[in-house]
């Protein structure tokens, strides 16, 4: 079976003063058809840059390696080739649903435009299909929304519109970058429900990027943990929470406050802070904060080793 997305040795780097900053550092990953992969990491870990590169939106960054979508190479190809899949078969939704929508076009026009461009539909047809899609993402009163403008909708509704837009051309993969981070917790629960339903109904693969492990926990089949531009752990979701193998994953999980269980007088914390762009990194970038670090971690870069569903980049993994 051809993976929906396969990325090999992808690096994304930026010129910073006189040196270069590696935002994404030799990352390889696969996403199978209809699979939901969670990508977690703190700010600056490279999770967004990785997927912006997949969408061809990395701007001035230097992107190297290979990105294949349904077997076809996206990197280095003609712009026309990527434009055919981008926005139709390969779509992305972002954190802030206000800035992702154009303020001066009606919702109906913005949705219909996708179908006019990608599927060659007439505007009338496209508008009707847009209305149906709004119904599928459970927006109340969908026909009326078509003539409304983004500012007339709440944040949760705008995110539903974005999701509707991403689904119009029956994509093979939807990339959702922090889709619920800007929303209230009750609205977040609705959007998570909707993403879950969308996976069941449409069989779409989903890359769910989030800093919030708990949001990813409810949806993902498999989770990738990123740190300093690298994937440090790849595991089946249940396994990752039951038995994290990378010390970073384990420490991070301890930091997540819980709604049940004992309340410690002090919260467990991770010492130090994640590396900033431009910081000199040790062979293992987590070594300065790692309780298990040894000399080897400062000399030899740990490779991401293991089978396709359980990989860890650590010289001294747990378990």
């Amino acid at each position, binding site marked *: 079976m051809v993976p929906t997305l396969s990325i090999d040795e992808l690096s994304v780097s930026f010129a910073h003063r006189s040196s270069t900053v590696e935002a994404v550092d030799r990352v390889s990953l696969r996403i199978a058809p209809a699979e939901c992969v969670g990508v977690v990491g703190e700010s600056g870990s490279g999770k967004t840059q990785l997927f912006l590169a997949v969408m061809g939106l990395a701007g001035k960054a230097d992107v190297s390696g290979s990105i294949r979508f349904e077997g076809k190479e996206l990197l280095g190809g003609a712009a026309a080739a990527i434009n055919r899949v981008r926005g139709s078969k390969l779509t992305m939704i972002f954190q802030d649903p206000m800035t992702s929508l154009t303020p001066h076009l009606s919702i109906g026009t913005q949705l219909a435009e996708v179908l006019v461009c990608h599927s060659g539909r007439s505007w009338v047809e496209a508008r009707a299909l847009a209305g149906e899609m709004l119904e599928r993402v459970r927006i109340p009163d969908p026909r009326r929304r078509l003539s409304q403008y983004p500012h007339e909708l709440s*944040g949760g509704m705008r995110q539903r519109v974005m999701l509707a837009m991403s689904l119009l051309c029956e994509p093979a993969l939807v990339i959702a970058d922090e889709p619920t981070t800007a929303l209230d917790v009750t609205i977040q*629960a609705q959007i998570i*429900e909707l993403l879950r339903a969308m996976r069941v109904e449409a069989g779409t693969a989903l890359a769910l990027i989030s800093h919030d492990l708990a949001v990813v926990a*409810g949806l993902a089949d498999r989770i990738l943990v990123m740190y300093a531009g690298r994937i440090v752990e790849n595991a089946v979701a249940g396994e990752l929470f039951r038995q994290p193998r990378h010390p970073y994953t384990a420490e991070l999980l301890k930091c997540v406050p*819980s709604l049940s269980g004992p309340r410690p007088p002090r919260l467990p914390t991770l010492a130090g802070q994640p590396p900033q762009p431009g910081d000199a990194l040790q062979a293992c970038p987590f070594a300065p904060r790692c309780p298990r670090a040894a000399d080897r971690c400062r000399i030899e870069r740990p490779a991401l080793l293991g089978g396709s569903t359980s990989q860890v980049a650590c010289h001294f993994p747990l378990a």
Partner: protein
Amino acid sequence: MNQPLLQVRDLRVGFGRQAVLRDVSFELFSGETVALVGESGSGKSTLARAILSLVQPTQGSVEFMGVDLLRSPGPVLRAQRRNLQIVFQDPLASLNPRMTVGDAIAEPLKIFEPQSTAAERRQRVAAMLERVGLSAGLASRYPHEFSGGQCQRIAIARAMVLHPKLLICDEAVSSLDVSIQGQIINLLLDLQRDEGMTMLFISHNLAVVRQLSHRVMVMYLGRLVEIASSDSLFIAPVHPYTRALLAAVPQIPPVAAAAPLVDGSFSAASIASGCAFRDRCPYALPLCASSDPSLTELVGAHWVACHRSHEPLNPLS
């Protein structure tokens, strides 16, 4: 019980039924941490601003250490300000980019202790930087040279340098990564233990609130709908809104989710009369549309504003 440090009575901001805050009454006691939770637009930040006299309430009173802040002449209010400090959500935006962090932390001292010498202030700034976990040598640096977590430490140092009696944290850890969030919460807990100050901790993150608050107040569309000790609120929430809010928090490992709440309705009708939550409430009765439930004490110190608070309601399925 001892005298409350802060007593807010019938506070209203804005006019009529469209008011941003309506009939808000509560007390804060010395040395406690009280969390204020609710969705965006519920009025949490407006309440913080009203306490600090940064917005002018249209009705009610805010009594702090026995002084009515809303009816005090300017000089009296200004004198009280040193005891009331706030830390905001965005640490970089709340620091002046053209001021060294040392000068930023020294500013409150210049204003409230004008007789202090520059050397004294430098010494206190250095001590404060060390106290919040930064090296004293960083006083001459500018905000852009620090990470978000470090900027929040600086904002806390600036708020704490006058040893306030009340510290308001308005989403102070919300923009921080989870590993940094814990460090800042621990810092606030340490400062509170050492200084004995009172903390009003505004947050939308219920799991964080549970870790550090003694009591919790839940706000919905400008009204307090439940006030309880942290233990009883998280174990036995009563108001349907509180229950829905708790049920919506994603958890590790994932728990089977209850049916999520429908979107907020802000129609004029829903706030024109009755309980503002009724359109989203799975337990609403005809009574809820006509009569606005008032905050009443259910059992010891557990206050709820709901017509059905005395009934055992079935869990949401």
